[in-house]
């Protein structure tokens, strides 16, 4: 990746992550589904339970409903040619399942595909006590 390509790749990656953020905010998984690779995986603990599989994520987002007050921040974007890692911190999660004022840390790994950057895995940590 040459120096001049970096901003383009960066913007492509952030655009993909923003689809996740929009879907979360509106409580509509259909908005975030195109951001995910068909083989994407999903891992993390919801309380003591290990949640896994993107189906779990999409169902959760739809059932949780709108979370208009979320405050997402991109903490890091690391790109190595065809692969990337994004750390996202989201404060102020709310909704039917989330409750209120919840803080979540997300690690997204992304793969560059012919149709753009796709999330290949989302790992999350749900911070107890917000």
């Amino acid at each position, binding site marked *: 990746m040459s120096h001049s390509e970096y901003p383009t790749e960066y913007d492509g990656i952030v655009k993909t992550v923003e689809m996740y953020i929009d879907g979360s905010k509106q409580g509509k998984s259909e908005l975030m589904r195109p951001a995910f690779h068909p083989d994407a995986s999903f*891992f993390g603990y919801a309380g003591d339970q290990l949640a896994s599989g993107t189906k779990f994520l999409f169902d959760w987002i739809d059932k949780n409903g709108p979370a208009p007050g979320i405050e997402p921040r991109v903490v890091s974007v690391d790109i190595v040619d065809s*692969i990337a890692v994004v750390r996202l911190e989201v404060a102020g999660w709310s909704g039917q399942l989330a409750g209120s004022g919840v803080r979540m840390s997300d690690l997204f790994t992304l793969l560059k595909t012919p149709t753009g950057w796709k999330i290949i895995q989302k790992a999350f940590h749900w911070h107890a006590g917000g």
Partner: protein
Amino acid sequence: MPERNTPQKTLESWKQIAAFLDRSERTVRRWETREGLPVHRREHEKQDTVFAFKHELAAWSRARTRCPSVIERAEPLLAEPASNTYLTEHDAITRAMHRYIAGARAGDGDLMRPAFHPCATMSGYCQGVEYSGSIEHVFQWINQNGPAPNGMARFARIEIIESIAVVHLEVQRWSGKLAGADARASDVFTLLKWQGEWKITHKLFHWHDQMLPGAS
């Protein structure tokens, strides 16, 4: 052929592990920190409550005999147990990663298997073709590739967020039947703390100097 993990096949202490390998406790502890000896820790118990599966130790031992340089080039750090919680987690993650590195150098998929979550997946491009799917593909590739004794791995990043972590490895001088000679790879691993142990849930890789789809 791995044996079943029946209780009889488990070693329950450093003393038993040392006796099984016919070495001192000090030596087997060093092998764990530096050479990826597969030792497990029980959840909710103090840090040094360990156990090991005989079949995993036997696989490690076979690979070590076949490919001794796996050992000599390994990380010279981690000689002493860490004094704080963050470093303890950090060390547990590097131990898991050393199992991967040891398996890659030895060309033995079973040697790295204990480092992975059972549902782990992989993704990346090889000669311009995307491979995404079960981590079993990685183990098969490693077995077919064979020994890569000169492979040199550097930790470019280890980031821990409570129950999840990301590790970026830069690997140089990768070799073997499939890797060719003097190849370079960047690997990004996502890990999850699962049943008290750090397990890799995803391996994302990039081979350098290979054709990419859509590359101009």
